[in-house]
């Protein structure tokens, strides 16, 4: 192991979680002020499980992923918190140390494979690059591995397609190439940033099944960022819901999506058309997400919340534990429970 020194340095207790993010803060300086894009997010990712991270655009979900991977834009920085991968905190590590972790331990799949792949490099060599750099594979051994990976992610005729360029692939096949690249150094966790949003529903189904199978068979963990709740249900065991830079609810997928404990989660579920449950009319979440330069006081969701009460406007709302291994940030989640009881989300 090339990173044996890092693992040895980990003094933390052994845990079933591959990744533990605690109290992460990311700030972005803009001309209009400091945007608190991620504000106290804590996440645990168990080994071999997929954790969904959902929210609207601008909720900070992609920023959280970028912070974990250590690829924040130059104007953004981590101001507090820890990101422990196998017990090692990544936040204070210099770039050179991060480079030894990205690939063998941590990798990422992006939303738009065409802009993430190198257009003038044969896909086979793009897949082989990681093993050559990180694992010291020879050219021929890395090429063999690349063909093997292409087969594993379901690219037909792998030997021949090794020499193809990204433009010769369909959208679904490109995303399979991205997955092969992400898998190439046998990472412990793969960060997925809306990897199926640009794909057709049939191809999305193929990719989700592939990821679910990888999770089960090779024990790799996933963080899956999306705004599409049913996609999370299809793939993930755990889900965290993000709003305006904060986590508002967290728990097992079926608990959170079918029986939410936060009005924002309930709003997301009720505003999306569902094939299994046709409603007379959709219930949009009123208003729009707040500015993160001056976020609302108290609960950040209070200006849009149908259940708002006086204390919501002033009292801070950290995530708190509920029975059954789930948590919510809502002060009055009983109101949400009543509303869910009144209209079952899925009958």
């Amino acid at each position, binding site marked *: 192991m090339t990173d044996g020194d890092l693992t040895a340095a980990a003094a933390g207790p052994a845990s079933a979680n591959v990744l533990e993010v605690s109290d992460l803060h990311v700030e972005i300086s803009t001309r209009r002020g400091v945007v608190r894009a991620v504000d106290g997010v804590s996440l645990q990712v168990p080994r071999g499980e*997929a954790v969904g991270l959902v929210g*609207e*655009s601008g909720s900070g979900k992609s920023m959280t992923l970028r912070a974990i991977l250590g690829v924040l834009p130059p104007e953004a920085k981590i101001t507090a918190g820890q990101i422990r991968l196998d017990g090692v905190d990544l936040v204070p590590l210099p770039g050179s140390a991060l480079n030894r972790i990205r690939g063998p331990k941590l990798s990422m799949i992006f939303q738009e494979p065409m802009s993430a792949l190198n257009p003038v490099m044969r896909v086979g060599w793009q897949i082989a690059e990681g093993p050559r750099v990180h694992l010291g594979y020879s050219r021929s051994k890395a090429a063999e591995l690349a063909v093997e990976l292409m087969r594993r992610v379901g690219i037909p005729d792998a030997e021949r397609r090794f020499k193809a360029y990204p433009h010769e692939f*369909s*959208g*679904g*096949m490109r995303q399979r190439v991205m997955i092969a690249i992400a898998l190439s150094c046998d990472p412990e966790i793969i960060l997925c940033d809306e990897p199926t949003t640009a794909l*057709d*529903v*049939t*191809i*999305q*189904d*193929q990719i*989700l*099944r592939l990821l*679910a*199978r990888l*999770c*089960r*068979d090779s024990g790799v963990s996933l963080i899956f960022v999306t*705004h*599409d*709740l*049913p*996609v999370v*249900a*299809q*793939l*993930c*065991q755990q889900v965290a819901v993000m709003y305006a830079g904060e986590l508002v609810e967290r728990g097992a*997928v*079926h608990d959170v*999506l*079918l029986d939410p404990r936060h009005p924002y989660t309930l*709003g*997301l*579920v009720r*505003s*999306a*058309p*569902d*094939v*299994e449950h*046709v*409603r007379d*009319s*959709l*219930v*949009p*979440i009123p208003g*729009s997400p707040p500015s993160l330069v001056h976020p609302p006081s108290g609960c950040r969701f209070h200006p849009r919340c149908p259940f708002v009460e006086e204390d919501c406007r002033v009292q801070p709302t950290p995530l708190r534990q509920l029975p059954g291994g789930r948590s919510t940030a809502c002060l009055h989640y009983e109101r949400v429970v009543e509303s869910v009881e009144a209209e079952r*989300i*899925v009958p």
Partner: protein
Amino acid sequence: MTGAPSGVASAGAISDAGTGPLLSVSGMSVSFAVGSRLAARIKHEQRMLRAIDGVDLDLRRGEALALVGESGSGKSTFALALAGLRPADRGQITFDGRVLPSRRSKSDQRRIQVVFQDPYSSLNPRLTVGGMLRELIRVHHVVPAGEADAYCAQLLTLVGLGEDAMRAYPRQFSGGQRQRVAIARALVLRPEVLIADEPVSALDVSVQATILNLLAELRAELGLTLLLISHNLAVVRHLCDRVAVMYLGRIVEVAPVGQLFSDPRHPYTKGLLAAIPRLTANPAEEAEGGPAVAGDMPSALRIPVGCRFRTRCPIAQELCERADPQLLAEPGNSGHQAACHFAFGSPAPAASANGSVQPY
């Protein structure tokens, strides 16, 4: 302004005489020339991409019809051809009992309007909303020049924007508001048919609901006939009365929305439905099962011989390679049609009997 007669303004009135479809498309084909034109001239052979390949479809007065399919199936090309924004090579469009000529008059153009997918690129960034609407009013003489502002204000209120929106530029709006502007722009000409091409797929989840609700309200309020193009079957189920499923430039199944979801007959439709992510799904089962539809859609440059879905079809047989299935109605149920040899019991007799083998 131009002093032209403003009599066209009353054209919104619909003649209720016919009980037939409001709009009827028959045998429509649209192809694109691909590759080098010069090489094509030298070789006397132009490669053609058949985006729409013989489509028959009726749009009934006041209904909401959905057109679904994967990207590249020809949905958007069909919408453009229907709106007269792209010429069709073959086929004809009958509107209200009259065949539309290939070059449409202004009053024909007015009757079919489109809302496009991306409200960021489909609005002119250098025109205010008022400017955009007034231009259309002037060109098409929708209302007399003096009433234009009042009419615009009324329209903007209808789509849920304030009168203030008149003086604003598109960049000042959020995605959802822009889509409202695009809807107002489509409605300003008092169309009878509104084509919405993926109207919510560029929008955030919480905003999608407001636009979908708006489309449903407008349809009820204005008696619009709606053609919704979407890849999201959940949206379709929520908003539409009938669904047409498109695959590689052909309609492969048409049915009332309830029937399509409860009793799909074409294997492609079955696959599309199975591929929809569901809130009640179980990841463990996902890892076990095979994909809902295997493989990718073939290129429209190389459409398979016989049934065009057979390369991905789980029940394909030798017959499917030989004969191109026609879109046929279920016996005793003319509302449900499918283009599969095995859609309504084993091999649809009509397909092979009347020699409809079409070797491409």
